[in-house]
């Protein structure tokens, strides 16, 4: 299928324009569900959410109700949360530990590996009911990379590890914060809607151009807390330190910034309080011993906002955020955000991590609500899309060498990939 291009990608004029219809159209959303969410690897959950056999989480992934669970043998599954009999949700609890999921409607019962194990009155089926043919259905593919589990609805998709391409190195950098190489999802989930198209969250998660204008109150808060943030001396920079935008393949990309805002692992700032200095020094020492000085510096002194196409964001900055989001109509998205931390983290370090998370992130944070406001204002403004058709995204286009985090190079990577998967001719 070949359709018109949704982008104007003009390398001669060094301009890049985006057709705003892609942010408002229900028809395009329908195509996205097939072409993007139906073909890409989509994040489901983290292995640390399922510690024991029988642990489960029920959630919606790209609009699909699923059960993310660990069976009695310890294997992790992703099952469609839909009874094979008449279609009801079979697991109604958000989380827990169960050997069996029983549909309340007619009592069909499934094991936590998805097998159908009980059908009331099954002698009524002529020739008997072949239970092996009626296990809970599941996505065509379900694979993990270092504890991050993804599903794919396309049986012919490349393996997850290949799909992730260069993003694997950046996931590794996050995981290197843990002495044993194990990170865990911390309890407490933030789930909130934004009245804006889901793709605007992709842009916002890595757009460092907006920080001074959208988040001046956060910058003031940091200054009030004793964190000196000097405006950049280099006039080409927007942020206080140098940062890059890096292409990682298959539509993935990341920012890669010299840290200026503190890191629980392991860069002290006055906001953490003097009492935290010793502990952060110890965390830093462990990194150097285990990883060597160069890698330790890489882990501890850079902030990275990583986008795994299409809708997983890992923000490794003042804390580690795992954030995913799905469309709920063209003009609305549902966001889920978790905090991630090393399994070994002590009580005081964990508390500091969570506090640092809230200084910036989440529905009650000092920055996220203003991001939400910005995205919602975009969506409201887009009501004029038919008469004001193009979004301007040419910033930094044609620049040689390293690309700046505050330019729009990485946003263009996303849109080019999206445009390609939608079957458009650029």
């Amino acid at each position, binding site marked *: 299928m070949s359709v018109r291009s949704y982008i104007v990608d003009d390398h001669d004029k060094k301009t890049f324009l985006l057709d705003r219809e892609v942010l408002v159209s229900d028809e395009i959303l329908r195509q996205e569900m097939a072409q993007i969410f139906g073909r890409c690897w989509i994040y489901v959950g983290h292995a640390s959410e399922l510690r024991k056999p029988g642990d489960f989480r029920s959630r919606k992934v790209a609009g699909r109700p699923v059960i993310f669970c660990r069976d009695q043998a310890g294997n992790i599954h992703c099952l469609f949360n839909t009874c094979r009999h008449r279609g009801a949700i079979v697991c109604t609890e*958000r*989380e827990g530990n169960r050997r069996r999921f029983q549909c309340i409607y007619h009592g069909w019962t499934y094991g936590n590996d998805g097998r159908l194990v009980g059908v009331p009155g099954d002698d009524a089926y002529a020739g008997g009911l072949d239970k092996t043919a009626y296990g809970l259905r599941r996505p065509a593919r379900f694979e993990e990379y270092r504890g991050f589990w993804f599903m794919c609805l396309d049986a012919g998709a490349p393996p997850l590890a290949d799909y992730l391409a260069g993003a694997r190195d950046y996931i590794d950098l996050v995981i290197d914060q843990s002495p044993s190489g194990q990170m865990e999802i*911390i*309890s*407490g*989930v*933030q*789930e*909130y*809607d*934004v*009245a804006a198209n889901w793709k605007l969250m992709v842009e916002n998660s890595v757009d460092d151009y907006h920080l001074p204008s*959208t988040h*001046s*109150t*956060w910058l*003031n*808060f940091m200054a*009030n*807390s004793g964190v000196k943030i000097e405006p950049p001396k280099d006039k080409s920079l927007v942020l206080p330190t140098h940062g890059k935008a890096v292409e990682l393949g298959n539509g993935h990309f990341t920012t890669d910034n010299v840290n200026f805002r503190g890191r629980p692992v392991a860069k002290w700032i006055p906001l953490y309080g003097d009492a935290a200095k010793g502990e952060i020094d110890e965390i830093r020492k462990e990194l150097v011993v285990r990883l060597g000085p160069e890698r330790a510096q890489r882990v501890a002194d850079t902030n990275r906002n990583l986008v795994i196409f299409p809708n997983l964001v890992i923000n490794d900055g003042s804390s580690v955020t795992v954030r995913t989001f799905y469309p709920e109509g063209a003009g609305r998205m*549902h966001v889920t955000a*978790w*905090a991630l931390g090393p399994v070994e983290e002590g*009580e005081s370090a*964990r*508390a500091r991590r*969570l*506090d640092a*998370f*809230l200084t910036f992130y*989440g*529905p*009650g944070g*000092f920055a*996220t*609500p*203003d991001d*939400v*406001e*910005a995205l919602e204002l975009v969506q*409201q403004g887009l009501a004029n899309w038919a008469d004001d058709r193009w979004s301007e995204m040419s910033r930094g286009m044609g620049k040689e060498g390293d690309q700046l985090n505050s330019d729009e190079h990485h946003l263009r990577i996303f849109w080019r990939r999206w445009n390609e998967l939608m079957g458009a001719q650029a």
Partner: protein
Amino acid sequence: MTVATPTVVTRAEIEDFLYHEAALLDDWKLAAWEALLTDDAAYYVPPNDHLESDHRSTLFLVADDRERIRQRIIRINDPNCHAEHPKSRTRRMISNVRILAVEGDLVTVAANFVCYRYRRYERIREYVGAYRHVLKRAGDTFRIKERRVLIDAHELGSLGSVSFIL
């Protein structure tokens, strides 16, 4: 003649105080609201999926100590706090006020609330839940030592954010 500090706390006293607090918040009189706080006051909004949890080990929506509350007010008053500029209009209804415990000069109280929030071009947002305050007796009134807001919704969802003081 001196008036002795009452040893008995009445629900009417608590109601008066909570209604006064609600009026200050609805009227955006944040300096007057801040004056109600003790020097060690804390403000918590636990996550919707773990209402009974500890902010040191669970990710909350809000977990402010006294200094962070001060910073939150500075932020909200700043016209560059875009999520609250122009300010939301809010209206709180408080009911089912109960005194749960009295220990020395500390009174733990519970109340139900509905907070209606309006912004331009937006549909109404209705925050429904329970307040749990720890109040400290201060003469014939109280100061707020801890303020915990438990939201009933299973997820924040269409409520979107907690960009004002709920």
